[in-house]
């Protein structure tokens, strides 16, 4: 049969944003996929150069609107390293706890939408959003905002934690553990889900490294790589947690890795809550629109975001950063789509894309 070229998107419910795919098909078999990105390009890297240091976190949060706190923290850490401002101990634990809650919220949203992509309609979607709302409520009470927190300040957080924070966080982990355990039967007991994810979108281990994917996609390919382990920040070296890895590197393994990661996040939160000093201040410096006394040495800093490894390479300057380069994990995970979806069926293309957990705002920047 002749090769047929089909255009998917840029407005399409399965692409989770504005993404255009040009797909070459032989019958029903995908021969080649070429993603066309850039519909959501806002020139964030250039924009960051025109603003003062602490005006920027708000822009960074809009990169990944599903896990904004992670980018916020990554950027503020880069500025902290450039200026040499230390972070208070209680604030470090508080940041760890909030980041892990953010990771759970992000994975919950992914799981709900992924089950929708696969064709298991609405049960998991509503359950995941219900439990994600409980996490967002806690983050809202800590920061004052439900979606875009802008909660990080140099040296700590924006405001003190609520008085009953430790108890509420602990109760929330118990609630989540109970609810997330219930998901397993619904998801894995479903033959539609299992049939459509097992053996679909296989990415070979060596190829995964060569293509440069990171985060759960890389770990599902059997590579035990996590910034929290390889370059521990805050007190990640003091808490115990495992890195779930996959063996077959298919869409099911990517689901499995993220699912197990939520339990590991709960473990991290509980240990951090136990280790956190009872009293103390978490407040950081107030926002002042003056440049820090930054030395002009470049800053390179990595964090494990929910989607993979995020990195900032910053050249500081007096008033504003001279250059900020962002490594967004979803960007390079999407670049792997073509390699994963060759010789699969057209209907599976969206399962594979869903399993990558992309956010277009972060890809286009």
């Amino acid at each position, binding site marked *: 049969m002749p090769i047929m070229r089909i255009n998917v998107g840029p407005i399409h419910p399965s692409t989770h944003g504005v993404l255009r795919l040009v797909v070459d098909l032989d019958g029903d078999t995908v021969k080649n996929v070429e993603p*066309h*990105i*850039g519909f959501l*390009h806002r*020139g964030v*890297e*250039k*924009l960051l*150069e*025109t603003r003062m240091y602490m005006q920027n976190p708000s822009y960074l949060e809009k990169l990944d609107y599903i896990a904004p706190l992670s980018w916020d923290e990554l950027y503020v850490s880069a500025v902290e390293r450039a200026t040499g401002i230390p972070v208070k101990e209680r604030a470090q634990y508080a940041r760890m706890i909030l980041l892990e809650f953010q990771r759970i919220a992000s994975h919950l949203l992914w799981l709900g939408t992924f089950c929708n992509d696969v064709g298991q309609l609405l049960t998991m979607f509503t359950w995941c959003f219900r439990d994600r709302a409980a996490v967002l409520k806690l983050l809202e009470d800590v920061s004052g905002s439900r979606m875009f927190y802008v909660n990080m300040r140099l040296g700590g957080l924006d405001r003190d934690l609520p008085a009953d924070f430790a108890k509420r966080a602990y109760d929330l982990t118990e609630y989540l553990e109970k609810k997330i355990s219930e998901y397993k039967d619904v998801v894995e007991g479903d033959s539609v889900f299992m049939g459509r994810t097992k053996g679909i979108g296989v990415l070979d281990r060596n*190829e995964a*490294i*060569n*293509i*440069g994917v990171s985060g759960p996609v890389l770990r599902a390919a059997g*590579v035990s*790589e996590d910034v929290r382990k*390889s*370059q521990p920040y805050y007190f990640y070296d003091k808490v115990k947690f495992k890195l779930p890895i996959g063996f077959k590197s298919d869409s099911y393994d990517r689901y499995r890795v993220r699912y197990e990661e939520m339990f590991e996040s709960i473990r991290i939160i509980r240990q951090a809550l136990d280790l956190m000093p009872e009293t103390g201040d978490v407040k950081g410096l107030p926002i002042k629109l003056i440049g820090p006394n930054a030395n002009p040495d470049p800053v*390179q800093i990595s964090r494990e975001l929910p989607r993979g*490894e995020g*990195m900032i*390479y910053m*050249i500081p300057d007096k008033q504003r950063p*001279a*250059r900020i*380069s962002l*490594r967004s994990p979803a*960007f*390079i995970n999407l*670049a792997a789509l073509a*390699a994963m979806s060759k010789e699969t069926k057209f209907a599976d293309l969206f399962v594979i894309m869903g399993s990558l957990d992309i956010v277009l705002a972060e890809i*286009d920047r």
Partner: protein
Amino acid sequence: MKQKGFDYLKKITAVDYTDRIEVLYFLYDTASAKSDIVKVVLNPTDPAVPSVLRLYKSADWYERELAEMFGVKITGRRTKRLLLEKWNGVDAPLRKSFVWGSDYKKSGAD
């Protein structure tokens, strides 16, 4: 570098210092968790670097981004298509000579 065990290319980026352009390759070794940076210093008038796509597939989109955002020519690769396709390929928006918002006025969009 690849023979030394650096099997993972994290990122390619560039910095414009107005008198020179530095292209940076962030490399990583997944076995031993070592990382390294390779720096290439270029003349800003007509910058060009050879493609590393044959060694690292992750270079594909980064090189296209580099060509689009910094006007750095990538020699020795087949796909010449820009990444975001919104620029004419003449302006290099992340260069310091490109003033923020100037394209907006140029395009006459109000």
